């Protein structure tokens, strides 16, 4: 049986990918950002997941304003890194576990989560930056160490799905994974955030106290965290901080009580607060 025993929350700031691609992670500006992922990379080697279920948001790359699915699951054999206006990132093509992805899609829909199924899709920094920070540099001619099932969540046009809906979707994803016959170690990532606002006169907003409280709640009181209303994210964590709803999908796929293995928080990466947490089911 396939199983999920650990989850990762992590920001996906594009500038972090650029820093890795340009080989400038040792610079004083970037060093503290990457220092906090050293332990994560060791942990990834120990865990060695077969598949990563990666919850992220597309930044008008695969989905522009013409089509805005709330939840879109990648079912294609592979996903190429997209050109976001400055050329594709030099990272490997992302390969799917297609049978598991199809099984999850079917299970979710019968479980009343009416997701969109993507049989063609390019992926942007929202998906590839979390892989890069967790695995370190991987040459574009090599392969990512795990297969990846992408789930794109709309957080660009208001409203994003509620935290509650995301949390319950996480539970449905776990049910889907655990009803798949093949013995697979599946890990789940929730990405985006933390506090940041990229637009208009309040651009640059960071709220470290709120972010730390969110990390505490995600670890210890996920049901309460899933009830945070959108307006609180917008006001307290900035207009783009609402990306954090995606962490609830990850959290819903884990036990209600978990062990916090690692936490990292740093301000800034470009315009954004970088947050990261690793959680394991107690029985894992």
């Amino acid at each position: 049986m396939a199983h999920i025993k650990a989850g990762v929350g992590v920001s996906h700031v594009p500038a972090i990918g650029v820093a890795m691609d340009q080989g400038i992670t040792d610079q004083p500006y970037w060093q503290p950002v990457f220092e906090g992922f050293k332990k994560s990379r060791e942990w990834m080697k120990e865990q060695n997941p077969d598949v990563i279920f990666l919850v992220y948001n597309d930044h008008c790359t695969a989905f522009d304003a013409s089509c805005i699915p709330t939840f879109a699951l990648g079912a294609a054999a592979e996903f190429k890194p997209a050109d976001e206006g400055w050329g594709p990132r030099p990272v490997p093509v992302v390969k799917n576990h297609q049978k598991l992805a199809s099984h999850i899609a079917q299970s979710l829909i019968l479980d009343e989560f009416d997701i969109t199924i993507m049989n063609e899709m390019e992926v942007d920094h929202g998906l590839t930056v979390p892989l890069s920070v967790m695995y370190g540099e991987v040459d574009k001619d090599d392969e990512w160490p795990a297969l990846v099932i992408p789930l794109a969540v709309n957080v660009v046009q208001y409203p994003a799905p509620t935290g509650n809906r995301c949390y319950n979707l996480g539970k449905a994803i776990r049910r889907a994974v655990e009803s798949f016959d093949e013995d697979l170690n599946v890990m789940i990532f929730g990405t985006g955030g933390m506090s940041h606002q990229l637009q208009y006169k309040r651009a640059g907003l960071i709220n470290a106290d709120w972010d730390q409280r969110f990390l505490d709640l995600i670890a210890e009181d996920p049901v309460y965290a899933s009830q945070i209303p959108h307006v609180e994210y917008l006001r307290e964590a900035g207009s783009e901080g609402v990306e954090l709803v995606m962490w609830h999908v990850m959290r819903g796929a884990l036990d209600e009580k978990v062990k916090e293995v690692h936490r990292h928080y740093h301000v800034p990466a470009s315009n954004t607060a970088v947050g990261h947490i690793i959680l394991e089911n107690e029985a894992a």
Partner: protein
Amino acid sequence: MTKKEYEDIPGTFVFDADRSREGYHLNMFCISLGKQVNRDAFKADPEAYLDKYPMTADQRAAILARDWNEMLRLGGNIYYTSKLAAFDGITFQDLAAMMSGMEREEYRAMMVNGGRSVEGNRYKSEWGEE
């Protein structure tokens, strides 16, 4: 229409369905610049390229003037308008500085020192706005 609960946040446009509808052609123009062939066409003849997108005269003027905040006010979204900024060679951080009316170095220093505080920046009333 009743006032939306997020409209009392200062210095912020929440890109909801109303804004998305209003800004549709402006945003579709911006996102088209993600492709090299379109960047080349826009560079060669900006006016002719803009003719392909049936936006309002105000939206078109804001684009040509590179009035980043006006684009947002008229329904633009930052993930779209940032493609036009990238076309101009402007980084995301420098764009953020411009939109918030700060000098580049001043903005960068603010971020390195922990970012813009939420204190005094939660409600329009704190900015003397309605």
